[in-house]
């Protein structure tokens, strides 16, 4: 039965994801933008996922229809909308919210509130359920069958799958003009995707390295899904609820690039699906490229692996059309979003972090119609929420609470103080984040995301 794991196993899973997440956070740094209150919306979403049991309540319904193992196996394809980043973040964002609440509760206790239960038994059960669900995803998705990446490889496609794509690869023969067009198109699509998804990268996926049978050159993929087609957002039919409209329509809702590379010193991925390559600019290392799209009768079909359309190879001529779409859509969207108020900008981000992966799980289980997915936009517009899974007043409280900047006096050592001073610049940062600056020894005894609490 899902959730039936021991305290020890739960703590081991918490320690594993804590270690990986801290390493990634320290390596990447905070993401901030003048356009979106990124830290603020992430922390609001994480509160919703844990404090309001939002993730647990939907996940248990999903699990009653489809197993996490099956969700993962069905996603072993190009362009399915669920990938290792989505799986990893299911555990990470929930535990992030849990850590925020535990930190708050420990602080209340320290302040003299004696009736505080730091982690009630019901919450422990929910946490074990989510951890158990999470631990069954990536091992059934990654070729290495591991929960987190092994040897910094992120591969999910079989050798036979890869071999079938071979005939679609177009040799580049060191043609700098083609590689420049390719990289520029990818860059424009990346910017568009980050802007349309409020700086969130769930719709961009990178994986590899793979190898064709008679070729030692590594093959990597970069996928973009949910390019603007008018009425679908986050895989959900949002007709009448789209937070924005763009006059430029993408030629397809998804595009997948494959590249073989020569003479690379390093091709590595982290659990957030970020590629680290050496040389960093690998334009002149590209030997062949492939471009594909999933032919879908409706972009929403991308979310149903059983109904995935054919993978259609595209010619190089599509690069200009994709670039033109992405560049024009970015400018139009940028001007539009710049006029939004703070709450709307914040809620589009919170919606993404709370719903984008969960929504796809619900679609895999064919139960997305059971839930309302527009509550974040309804909140932003001051409308009543059409769900009883999310409390409007609590959202208001989270936004207010996180609006205060953290202070470096939270540090327990001089070294921590120096690091935390850097965090003081950001708005919406939950103070528990300062725990990532503790020593390795301290992290080992008491992980970033806290062991299960005794009281």
């Amino acid at each position, binding site marked *: 039965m899902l959730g039936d794991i021991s305290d020890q196993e739960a703590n081991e899973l918490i320690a594993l994801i804590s270690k990986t997440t801290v390493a990634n956070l320290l390596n990447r*740094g905070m993401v901030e933008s003048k356009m979106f209150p990124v830290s603020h919306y992430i922390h609001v979403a994480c509160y919703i996922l844990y404090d309001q049991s939002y993730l647990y309540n939907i996940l248990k319904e999903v699990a009653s229809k489809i197993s996490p193992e099956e969700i993962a196996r069905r996603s072993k394809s190009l362009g399915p909308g669920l990938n290792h980043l989505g799986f990893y973040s299911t555990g990470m964002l929930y535990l992030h919210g849990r850590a925020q609440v535990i930190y708050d509760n420990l602080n209340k206790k320290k302040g003299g509130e004696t009736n505080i239960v730091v982690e009630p038994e019901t919450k422990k059960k929910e946490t074990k359920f989510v951890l158990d669900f999470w631990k069954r995803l990536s091992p059934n998705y990654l070729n290495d069958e591991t929960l987190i990446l092994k040897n910094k490889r992120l591969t999910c496609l079989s050798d036979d799958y890869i071999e079938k794509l071979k005939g679609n690869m177009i040799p580049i023969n060191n043609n700098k003009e083609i590689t420049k067009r390719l990289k520029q198109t990818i860059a424009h699509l990346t910017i568009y995707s980050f802007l349309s998804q409020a700086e969130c990268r769930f719709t961009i996926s990178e994986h590899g390295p793979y190898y064709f049978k008679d070729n030692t050159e590594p093959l990597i993929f970069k996928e973009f899904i949910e390019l603007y087609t008018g009425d679908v957002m986050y895989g959900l039919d949002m007709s009448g609820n789209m937070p924005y409209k763009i006059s430029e329509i993408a030629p397809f809702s998804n595009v997948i690039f494959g590249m073989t590379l020569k003479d690379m010193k390093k091709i590595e991925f982290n659990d957030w699906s970020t590629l680290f390559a050496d*040389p*960093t600019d690998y334009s002149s290392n590209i030997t062949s490229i492939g471009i594909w799209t999933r032919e879908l009768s409706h972009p929403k079909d991308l979310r149903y692996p059983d109904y995935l359309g054919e993978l259609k190879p595209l010619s190089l001529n599509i690069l200009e059309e994709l670039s033109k779409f992405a560049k024009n859509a970015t*400018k139009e969207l940028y001007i539009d979003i710049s006029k939004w108020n703070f709450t709307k900008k914040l809620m589009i981000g919170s919606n993404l972090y709370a719903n984008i992966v969960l929504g796809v799980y619900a679609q895999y289980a064919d139960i997305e119609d059971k839930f309302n997915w527009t509550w974040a936009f309804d909140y932003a517009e001051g409308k009543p929420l059409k769900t009883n899974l999310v409390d409007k007043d609590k959202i208001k409280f989270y936004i207010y609470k996180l609006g205060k900047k953290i202070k470096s006096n939270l540090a327990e050592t001089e070294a921590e103080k120096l690091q935390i001073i850097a965090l003081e610049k950001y708005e919406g940062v939950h103070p528990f984040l300062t725990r990532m600056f503790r020593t390795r020894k301290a992290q080992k005894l008491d992980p970033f995301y806290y062991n299960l609490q005794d009281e």
Partner: protein
Amino acid sequence: MKKIGEGASCSSNSEVIGEFVFIQSVEDVINIFDDANGKICIVEDSGSTTLGPILSDLAGVLCSLGSVGSHLAIVSREFEIPCIMTVEFLIDDLSSLTGKKGKIVTESEDKGIIYLLE
């Protein structure tokens, strides 16, 4: 030529000259929508959305925060635009650089130096 800062380089492009613009708001970006060619933008944000619409036109990007794994660094690399992250500036008033000519020199795969041309 005066050195005004250095940081972690995210591209292999070795040298570029351009006009500095210190970006403090979205409006600052909109103001140079049609005039971004050849500019070196200075930002604090390591996300890619602040400079998004003009990034492909820029001569270079300088960011005082983030890292080589930040969204801004990733996209700048794709555009083959010199991008220096976690820049430690040797001057306090970055807005005083706006309108002045500067140069980015990538000394090695991961180190970039910024000069003010006088």
